[in-house]
């Protein structure tokens, strides 16, 4: 196959890699399932179909080595082989998935693909011992199509095509059966579109005298018969027209879901995938019963971003309009136009809100797309370390912005691998500790306000606080004096410090130091946060919080000195007022009492990052100030503000401003009147506070 243009070709290639990734994911899942239930014939068929597709796709893309290997592997995936090697077939499938993955990676980088020698050895081992028995030729046509074939047939019929089951019985006296097969296959192919063919690929098998096909054609049965009745070869031809789709509804749904999943994997939500409803299935009409994938649009993510940006501009425009109308209402309080203005404004706001939601939805994908990789990760670690580990997942349907989800892939994989590798003890140790031999890693995702929380927890040995502190002191990250003042939670936070641990000390401190600083910075880059809880002997939980979207937030606006700031409304616990008399100094820190809790008081103008740009504070008299109590990841602190402005939806903008580039600011926004608002990065403020020991009350 040659590509007509470079652009076309690269588009196809992208599509190929995308669908190949899906195929490999499917192989991994099926392989794991087969490991649990070795006799699952349907799973095996799934793998076979997947490999078959990969074979065809890769051949079409010119990736012949991959195609050939897939072809060889396909031969192994028969029920006979699987039965004979129930114990190892799952393993080989997983090895194959890995091998294909490596080859794909090489192709993607325009490198020479690995030969896949290990897989070839497995294949020949499986094939050698299960000498294939020649299948007896079917004497009568059965048209025993696979599910996939039946689907193609059902779809063709729904699209208004005429589909026939055609069986050509070869004359047993015909010379050269292989050539006869070839001719007959060609004849059938020339008679219409072949939806299904037996023997597969039309390849001749010793002793076989029957070729079956499902044919979509505009020709009459008589014409088909004449065409397929190849002289001196065919003995007879039988034709029956297929009228009703005989595919089970479940299959159709499966395909729909699959195509949706594929679309989602590429970050696109089918806007209106045809529902597999009764009407569509029964009408069989030309219109309204299109192939499901035809209702899915593949759109470059950049285009959606453009729309999102424009929506953002419109929100700013709306805010400008609101201000103008408010002014107009003040100056023309009796003008009847007032009502019309506010009606129009309300309508516009509502539509704009819907528009924004819709665009955001397009970018959303369920976290399952990430979670589904992890069973394999856990399984591999368990095998490698000879442990018994289960993975439980919840909340897979939680939606998250695709770009955020992509950015979470690495950190999450890291945490899951760590949990399985270092968190979970081996069976003997677990039993000795009175725990079940099988350890469990939990993955959980849920919405929490404007955030999505993903938790990775294990029921393993937990973190050793003493060792972490010792390590921290050895590495010069903290002093002994500081260490003595850290509470439980704060000392655990140390493991996020760069350089706390290196790989060779992994197991000594439960391996929780390796690259965790990387996890932390990845989360901070996403305007999110990572926290952890750990109990010795009971396990560790990492909680990652990320914003639902990077595009806009609902925020509380306030003023400190002459600057406008905002915090995400979700992080605001309460608002209170205190007077200077309520503020006490502890260890160079200001604290205040809120009911029975002592909280750190943060003054933005005193934080080092902001101090330079703010006038020196001189206005602290005995007046009462507003304090926004901010709750972030189990920690609470108070934020002293000069005045509260109100709640507003902010569209996050990238601004070139030295203040914005501060890690304590997660972004900026522009109000309708052109004022710039800085959005505080609450998790960063929290961690900024906790970098200085002995502050930051924990909830």
């Amino acid at each position, binding site marked *: 196959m040659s590509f007509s243009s470079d652009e076309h070709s690269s588009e196809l290639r992208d599509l190929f890699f995308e669908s190949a990734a899906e195929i490999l994911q499917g192989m991994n899942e099926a392989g794991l399932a087969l490991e649990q239930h070795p006799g699952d014939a349907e799973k095996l068929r799934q793998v076979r179909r997947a490999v078959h597709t990969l074979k065809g796709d890769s051949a079409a893309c010119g990736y012949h080595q991959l195609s050939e290997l897939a072809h060889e592997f396909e031969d192994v995936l028969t029920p006979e082989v699987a039965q004979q090697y129930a114990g190892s077939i799952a393993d080989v499938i997983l090895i194959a998935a890995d091998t294909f993955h490596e080859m794909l990676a090489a192709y993607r980088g325009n490198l020479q693909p690995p030969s896949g020698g290990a897989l070839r050895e497995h294949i020949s081992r499986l094939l050698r011992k299960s000498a294939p028995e020649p299948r007896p030729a079917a004497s009568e046509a059965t048209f025993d199509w696979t599910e996939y074939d039946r689907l193609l047939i059902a779809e063709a019929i729904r699209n208004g095509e005429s589909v026939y089951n055609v069986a050509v019985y070869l004359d047993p006296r015909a*010379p*050269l059966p292989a*050539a006869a097969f*070839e001719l007959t296959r060609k004849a059938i192919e020339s008679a219409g579109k072949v939806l299904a063919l037996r023997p597969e690929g039309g390849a001749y098998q010793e002793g076989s005298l029957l070729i079956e096909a499902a044919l979509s054609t505009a020709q009459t049965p008589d014409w088909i*018969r*004449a*065409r397929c009745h190849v*002289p*001196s070869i065919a003995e007879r031809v039988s034709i029956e027209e297929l009228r009703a789709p005989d595919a089970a509804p479940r299959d159709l749904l499966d395909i729909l879901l699959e195509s949706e999943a594929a679309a989602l994997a590429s970050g696109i939500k089918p806007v209106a995938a045809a529902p597999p409803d009764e009407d569509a299935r029964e009408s069989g009409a030309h219109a309204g019963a299109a192939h499901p994938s035809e209702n899915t649009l593949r759109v470059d993510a950049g285009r959606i971003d453009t729309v999102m940006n424009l929506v953002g501009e419109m929100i700013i425009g709306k805010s400008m309009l609101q201000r103008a109308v408010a002014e107009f209402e003040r100056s023309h309080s009796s003008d009847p136009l007032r009502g019309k203005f506010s009606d129009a404004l309300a309508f516009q706001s509502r539509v704009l809100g819907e528009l924004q939601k819709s665009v955001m939805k397009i970018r959303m994908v369920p976290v399952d797309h990430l979670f589904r990789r992890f069973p394999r990760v856990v399984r591999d670690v368990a095998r490698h370390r000879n442990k018994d580990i289960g993975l439980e997942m919840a909340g897979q349907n939680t939606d998250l912005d695709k770009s955020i989800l992509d950015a979470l892939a690495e950190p999450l994989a890291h945490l899951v691998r760590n949990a399985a590798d270092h968190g979970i003890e081996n069976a003997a140790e677990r039993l000795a500790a009175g725990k079940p031999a099988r350890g469990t890693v939990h993955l959980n995702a849920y919405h929490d306000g404007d955030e999505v929380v993903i938790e990775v927890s294990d029921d393993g040995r937990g973190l050793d606080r003493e060792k972490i502190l010792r390590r921290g002191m050895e590495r010069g990250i903290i002093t002994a004096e500081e260490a003595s003042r850290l509470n439980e939670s704060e000392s655990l936070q140390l493991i996020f410090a760069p350089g706390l641990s290196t790989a060779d000390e992994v197991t000594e401190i439960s391996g929780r130091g390796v690259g965790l600083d990387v996890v932390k910075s990845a989360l901070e880059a996403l305007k999110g946060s990572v926290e952890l809880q750990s109990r010795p002997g009971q396990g560790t939980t990492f909680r990652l919080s990320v914003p639902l979207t990077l595009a806009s937030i609902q925020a509380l606006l306030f003023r400190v000195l002459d600057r406008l700031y905002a915090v995400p409304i979700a992080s605001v616990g309460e608002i209170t007022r205190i007077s200077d008399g309520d503020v006490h100094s502890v260890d160079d820190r200001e604290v205040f009492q809120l009911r029975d809790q002592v909280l750190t008081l943060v003054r933005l103008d005193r934080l080092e990052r902001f101090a330079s740009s703010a006038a020196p504070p001189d206005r602290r008299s005995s007046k009462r100030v507003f304090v926004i109590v901010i709750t972030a990841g189990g920690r609470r602190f108070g934020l002293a503000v000069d005045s509260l402005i109100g709640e507003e939806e902010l569209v996050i903008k990238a601004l070139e401003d030295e203040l914005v580039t501060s890690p304590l600011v997660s972004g900026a926004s522009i109000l309708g009147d052109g004022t710039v608002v800085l959005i505080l990065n609450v998790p960063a403020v929290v961690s900024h506070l906790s970098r200085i020991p002995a502050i930051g009350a924990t909830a």
Partner: protein
Amino acid sequence: MKQFETLTRKDSQPVRYLIVDDSVFARKSLAKMVESFGGQLAGEAGDGRTAITEYARTKPDIVLMDITMPQMEGIEAVEHIVQQYPEARIVMVSSVGYQDNILAALQKGARHFVQKPVKPDALYEIVRYVLNEDGVTAPSIVVQEDRR
């Protein structure tokens, strides 16, 4: 020799044949056969190379091509001819034991095959089928009910 219902082109002209075989005897007997179908001998060739030039010169409706010949084998000739004239209708003629060669020829674009010794009935059906397939003959498709 048995007379067959005449195969005629749509333009009422006789079907024209190019017969390629290194054996003169084989060529003559095939020529007689196709004449009994109402056909006309457009040309003859004793080897693959000549077959190619003869095809270009005569543009026949059907080529009957032997598999094993000196100078250039039948398969190679098929490849050359089909490459240049994709519409060429070539029927391979072969002796027993050349299954692989036949398969290769079919894959190279030959349209059908017949085994030596060639039976007139079989060749007639094959030629008719191949011509019908391309709509060369008048649309007189006889629907063959399964006779067996």
